């Protein structure tokens, strides 16, 4: 077995290329800058386009323009950049523009600490754009995930025509690790669906049996309209309340009703366990160490590592927590995702442990939390 050595950001870039990404625009920001560098190395020689926008708003705007031209697109930033993306994210949500957005999180709030990790954007990614409609958020644990979840992210963005976030972290994006590239999961590549033939094209018309409008690229033979305004199936502004309400509901349901199909997770359920640890991102790595140690010590705990954070994989959480007395959510923030778990498991004791000082949560800390339950 031959091993390669790479950081998470590079693995995301390579995953993007494998997924068919043809356009990247970004703006330098630690700890996402190396993702931009990697795309700059990979994309232009492969015939793709890699731009440095004048700011974050421009970078994501350029991506949206290229996406409407038919390209698979990605941008990457950190928390401060996500703030600036916000209005464009809501454009992509409401106007169904496929885009993958990588948030290599750093310690916030605000400009915070550029070179320290955190998972403080986990609710922000879900709720940080106007209108409150759902988005998809995936969270990689390691370099292998950075590669394969990026491909999934593209597939989901294309399939559901919505922004898909990869919630990375300085501690994943800029940490290098050995990886067996030949063993990586490479999901089948999915592109956006064209409208059914033999019908006049209406850019937001949803064909029978579908939940998402068929896509035609701007610049093709058929004229395409795109608008950030509240629109009807023809892409023109509408004031028809039924049409508006129906469309908004569809934008919600196209993601929520399909959520089970992209609930990525790893669960290790021990039948004698009293406690279930729920973790995601880099913290899951420490939780896995604790799981292994306690299993060896014959004091097993169960472990649920969530790789889809939004929509919350509620059935997965309920099922994993079914037999335990106590759930412990461990995350690099002040309990942002614990609130979702508490919402899903109102009858269960849900404890939280977190930290927000730039340090990783260690296995030792998690063991203490489990032991002092």
């Amino acid at each position, binding site marked *: 077995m031959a091993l390669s050595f790479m950081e998470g950001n590079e693995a995301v870039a390579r995953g993007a290329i494998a997924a068919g990404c043809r356009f990247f625009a970004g703006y330098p920001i630690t700890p996402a800058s190396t993702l931009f560098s990697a795309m700059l190395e990979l994309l232009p020689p492969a015939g793709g386009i890699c731009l440095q926008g004048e700011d974050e708003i421009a970078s994501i705007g350029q991506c949206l323009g290229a996406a*409407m031209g038919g390209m698979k697109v990605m941008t990457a930033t950190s928390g401060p950049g996500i703030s600036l993306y916000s209005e464009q994210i809501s454009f992509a949500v409401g106007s169904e523009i496929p885009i993958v957005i990588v948030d290599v999180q750093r310690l916030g709030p605000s400009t915070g600490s550029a070179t320290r990790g955190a998972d403080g954007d986990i609710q922000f990614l879900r709720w940080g754009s106007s209108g409150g409609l759902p988005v998809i958020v995936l969270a990689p644990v390691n370099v292998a995930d950075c590669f394969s979840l990026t491909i999934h992210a593209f597939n989901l963005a294309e399939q559901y025509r919505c922004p898909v976030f990869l919630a990375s972290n300085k*501690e994943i994006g800029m940490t*290098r690790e050995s990886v067996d*590239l030949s063993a990586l999961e490479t999901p089948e590549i999915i592109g956006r669906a064209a409208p059914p033939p033999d019908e006049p094209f209406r850019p937001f018309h949803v064909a029978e049996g579908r939940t998402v409008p068929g896509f035609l690229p*701007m610049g093709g033979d058929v004229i*395409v309209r795109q608008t950030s305004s509240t629109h009807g199936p023809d892409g023109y502004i509408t004031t028809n309340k039924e049409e508006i309400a129906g469309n908004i509901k569809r934008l919600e349901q196209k993601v929520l009703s399909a959520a089970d199909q992209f609930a990525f997770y790893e669960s290790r359920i021990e039948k004698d366990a009293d406690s279930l640890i729920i973790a995601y991102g880099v913290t899951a790595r420490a939780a896995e160490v604790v799981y292994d140690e306690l299993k060896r010590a014959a004091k097993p705990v169960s472990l649920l590592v969530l790789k889809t954070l939004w929509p919350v994989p509620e059935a997965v959480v309920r099922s994993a927590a079914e037999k335990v007395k106590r759930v412990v959510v461990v995350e690099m923030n002040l309990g942002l995702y614990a609130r979702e778990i508490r919402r899903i498991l109102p009858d269960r004791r849900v404890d939280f442990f977190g930290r927000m000082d730039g340090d990783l949560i260690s296995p030792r800390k998690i063991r203490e939390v489990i032991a002092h339950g």
Partner: protein
Amino acid sequence: MDSLLNKSRPPAYCPGCAYDRVTVGLDQAFQHLKLSGNQVAMVSDIGCSGLFDTFFHTHALHGLHGRALTYATGLKMARPELKVVVTMGDGGLGIGGAHFLSACRRNLDLTLLILNNFNFGMTGGQFSSTTPSGARVGSGFLNQLEKPIDPCTVALSAGAPYVRRCSSYGRDLAEEIAAAIAYEGFSVVDIWGACTGRYTRKNRLTPATIEENLAGLPPMPGKVNENARKEFGRHYRELAAALKPAAPPEAIEAQFEPPAPARREVVILGGAGQRVVTAGEILCLAGLTAGLNATQKNEYNITVLRGPSISELILSPESIGFTGIEEPDVILALGPEGVARRGYLFDRLNKESCVIQAAGVDIPGSRATVHPIDFKARKIKAQDWALAGLAVLAGLNQVITMDMLHAALAHRFKGPLLAQVLELVDSVNI
């Protein structure tokens, strides 16, 4: 050619609005250029200029206020064959000022029509980036405090290769617009007109006064010779085509036995400029040559050339979960900044642990075996201490062997640089 006006959506501006004129002029320009609807993309944003895309039967992308140029840039790069025409008001121009400057600097083949009517019409006639300080507008006295910008002189100084200024009421409006669209590069046309719904209620602005005002300004040349240069998209494709494809990631075969088949944790504590991160990578590559898994977690201040530089490295025959190091097996103490930040680690060392201590770097007491080494006396420069420290480690047969180190260097460096680093590590010879 046929008109590209949208038959199902006739223009619906306020009576007397200058935008009506521009709509007609733009349609005539499309006809002059013999463009069909699917060859054109209209990109607009918010405000009355944002109604434009609706009135044409072309591709249309209508987005957020001030951001039209951002979408246009992505779309044009994705579809170079499209004629992309951007309409922005003077409001969007102010909001998207950075995009305007960048579009001028970039010189991508877009045409920007600034529909300049000196106020935010749709929202109540508030002042915009071009409202005269003496105008009476919906922002009370605030416009008296600010100087309006001249988009044309801004465009000139920002590098736009095509800049024109004209009146919505001019007879040659269609020709003006057609010439700008035909130009291969970023073309800006600042088109002055009256907003009858808001601005001209309290301010005198007529076709005649616009003509007068324009006549009093230095004319804009259209093609700007000093800014003439390659079009961005063409230039991009030219430069990108000359690039070599990126190399696939290297895969390293296991060929050595490590000193011990166990997990080893190494922390390099140094300072900026000591190439700590590179040395960390080399240690991990050395691990890979013995079939070990490896992780490298770095810490440094954002001021890259000052402050501590720390690399936490784990080599293990098992898969590695947690990437932090709480109780290292080995510390390379190479710089006071790094030692200061992780001083607490020394207390956690045991008698099996080892510390490689560069002369001149004070370290806290510990139970570990300390191997002092005077790099300066060996004439090794500070930037090579971290790599030399790996040679000491290999010389002690700790964590890595000299064979592993050599193989790692051969993976990381080529040519004369490889010869230099091999010479360096061999010279350490403890």
